[in-house]
C-alpha cells in the first residue's frame, strides 16, 4: 500500500516537474530555444490536438485541419497587414471564418467514414492549398509577411516570453475545453458515434449531425493555431498549409498518441526537437523521422503517451515485487438517489 502510494506520488511528482519546466521555459531556457522549440511545439500541438480530438473521440481522421489552420491564419494576417485591422479583431475574424469553413467541410464529409472520410478531407486540404497559392489577395505563393502580433505579446523572436506564455495559456484552455466537451452529453455521444453509428441511430441520435458539429467544434482550435503560428513566425503563406504540412500534423498526432489529447503536444515537442537538432546532423532527416514514426506506431498504437502509460504500470507491477497486479477494487456502485419526482 505504502509502496503504491509512493509510486503514485512519484508519478505525480515527475508530472509536476515537467509542468513546472514547461511553465518556466522562457526563464530556464535560451531565447532561441523558447522561440524555436517552445512556440513551434505549442502551435503545432494546438493544430494537432484538433485532429486528436476528431480522431480519438469522433473516429474522424481528418487531413483538413491544416486547411482550417490556414484559413484563420491567412485571413488574420491579411486583415492586420493589408487592411490595418487590430490584431485581435483580425484573429477573431480569422477564427470565425475557419469555424464557418469547418461547418461546411464537416457537413459534406460527415456522410463518409474511414478511408472515404480521409480522402474527402484530403481533397479539402488540396483545394484550400491551391486556392491560397493562387489568389493574390493572400499573397499567392509569397504569402503575407510582416505580421505583427498584438503589442502586449512582445517580439516573438527577440523576446518570446510573453508570446510563449500566451500560447501556453491558449493550449491549456483548449485542452481543458476539449476534455470538458468529451464528458458532456454531446461529447459522449460523439464517442458513441465513433464506436457504433448504427447503434447510436437506434438510440435516437442523428449521427451525421453529431459528426458535423464535432468537426465544427474542432475548427476554431485549428484556426487559433493558425493565427498563433502567423504571430509566432510573423508570416504565413500557402506553403504553411501544403500537403506535406497536413501529413506532418497527422504524424505529430500519431507520434504523441491519438487516444489522449495531451499526446498532441508531446508529439509536437518530439517533432520540433528532432527538426531543430537532428536536421543539422544528417541530410537524411526526413528518412529518420519516417523510421521514428514507424517504430512508434509499431511499438505502441497509443503513441508516446500510450508508451509512457504502459511503462509506468509496468514499473508499478515490477516494484510491487512481481506480484500480479491486484484486480482493481470494484468500486461499490453509487447508491441510486431516491428522488421524489423522477422515481422509476
Amino acid at each position, binding site marked *: 500500500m505504502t509502496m503504491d502510494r509512493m509510486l503514485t506520488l512519484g508519478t505525480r511528482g515527475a508530472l509536476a516537474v515537467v509542468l513546472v519546466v514547461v511553465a518556466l521555459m522562457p526563464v530556464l531556457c535560451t531565447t532561441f530555444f523558447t522561440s524555436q522549440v517552445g512556440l513551434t511545439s505549442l502551435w503545432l500541438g494546438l493544430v494537432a490536438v484538433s485532429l486528436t480530438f476528431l480522431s480519438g473521440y469522433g473516429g474522424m481522421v481528418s487531413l483538413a485541419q491544416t486547411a482550417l489552420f490556414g484559413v484563420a491564419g491567412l485571413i488574420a494576417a491579411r486583415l492586420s497587414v493589408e487592411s490595418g485591422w487590430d490584431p485581435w479583431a483580425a484573429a477573431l475574424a480569422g477564427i470565425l471564418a475557419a469555424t464557418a469553413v469547418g461547418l461546411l467541410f464537416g457537413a459534406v464529409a460527415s456522410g463518409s467514414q474511414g478511408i472515404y472520410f480521409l480522402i474527402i478531407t484530403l481533397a479539402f486540404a488540396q483545394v484550400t492549398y491551391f486556392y491560397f497559392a493562387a489568389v493574390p489577395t493572400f499573397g499567392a505563393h509569397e504569402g503575407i509577411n510582416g505580421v505583427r502580433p498584438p503589442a502586449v505579446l512582445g517580439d516573438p523572436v527577440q523576446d518570446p516570453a510573453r508570446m510563449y506564455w500566451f500560447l501556453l495559456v491558449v493550449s491549456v484552455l483548449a485542452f481543458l475545453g476539449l476534455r470538458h466537451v468529451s464528458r458532456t*452529453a*454531446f461529447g459522449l*455521444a460523439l464517442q458513441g458515434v465513433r*464506436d457504433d453509428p448504427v*447503434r447510436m441511430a*437506434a*438510440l*435516437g441520435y442523428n449521427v451525421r449531425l453529431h459528426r458535423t458539429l464535432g468537426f465544427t467544434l474542432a475548427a476554431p482550435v485549428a484556426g487559433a493555431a493558425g493565427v498563433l503560428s502567423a504571430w509566432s513566425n510573423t508570416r504565413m503563406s500557402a506553403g504553411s498549409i501544403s500537403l506535406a504540412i497536413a501529413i506532418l500534423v497527422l504524424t505529430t498526432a500519431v507520434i504523441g498518441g491519438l487516444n489522449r489529447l495531451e499526446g498532441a503536444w508531446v508529439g509536437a515537442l518530439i517533432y520540433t526537437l528532432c527538426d531543430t537538432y537532428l536536421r543539422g546532423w544528417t541530410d537524411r532527416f526526413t528518412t529518420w523521422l519516417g523510421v521514428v514514426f514507424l517504430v512508434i506506431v509499431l511499438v505502441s498504437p497509443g503513441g508516446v503517451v500510450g508508451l509512457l502509460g504502459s511503462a509506468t504500470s509496468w514499473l508499478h507491477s515490477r516494484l510491487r515485487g512481481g506480484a500480479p497486479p491486484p484486480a482493481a477494487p470494484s468500486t461499490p456502485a453509487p447508491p441510486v438517489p431516491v*428522488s421524489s419526482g423522477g422515481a*422509476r
Partner: protein
Amino acid sequence: MTGAATAPVLRVRGLTRRFGGVVAVADVDLDIAPGERRAVLGPNGAGKSTLFNLIAGADTPTSGSIELFGADVTRLGARQRARLGLSRTFQTSRLLTGLTVEDNLYLAAVGVSGGRLRLLRTARDRTAREQARATAESVGMTDRLATLAGDLSHGEQRQLEIGLALVAEPRMLLLDEPAAGLSRSERQLLTALLLSLDRDVTLLLIEHDMDVALTVAERVTMMHDGVVIVEGTPAEIRGDQRVHDLYLGKAHV
C-alpha cells in the same frame, strides 16, 4: 385512437425486402396489439432479423408499409422511430465498446429524452444517470458500471444490450435472439426479466430457445424463406405439423 382499444401498435402491410436475387422478407403482414408478447420463430435465414431491421428503420423496405403507434413511419429513419418509443436489440451485440457500462446506458437515456447536443452538464443529466443506474440494477450490472463495454464477457454484453433497449422506457421492444450464447442460468434470469416487464410495453421477440420463447410469448409468428407460414398460440404452434417439419423436429442450433 378513437375508442378502438385493440388498434394495433404495429401494423405491417405487404412488407418486402429484396437483396439482389434473395427475397429476405416477402409480402409480410403483421399486427401487434398493445401490450402483446409476440415471438417470431423460424430457421436461420428465414428473414426474422431483416424484418426487425425494417420495423426499426435500420433498413428500407423494397415495398410495403409500416405503421407504428398509429402513424405511418415507413419513411422515417431509425432515430425518429426510437424517439417515438421503439427500442431494439441486435442479434450480434452493438455496444459502445469504448465507453463504460454507465455511459452506454446514460447515452441510451439521453437519446430519447433529448439534450443530445448539450455541452454543459445540467439537472437532466442527473436524471439520465439515475435512469442508467436503475436499469443497470434491473439487468444485474450494478457492479460493472465503471467497466468498458468492450471488456465485458459475452453474457454481460447481452445483458447490456437489453439494458440499452430498456433504459428509455420504450413503448415497444424488439429483441433479436436475446438468449443467444447465454448459459442456462442466464437464460432463466432473462426469462424472468422479460416476464416482469411492464404491461405497457409491447414485446416482439426473435428467439431460438423454445423455453424462453414459448414461456414469454402469448402468440407466435412462424417464418420461413421470408414468408409468414403460421401464426397462433404457443400450443397451436407446438401442434402444427409444418412447424415440426421445419423447425421443432430438427435439433436447433
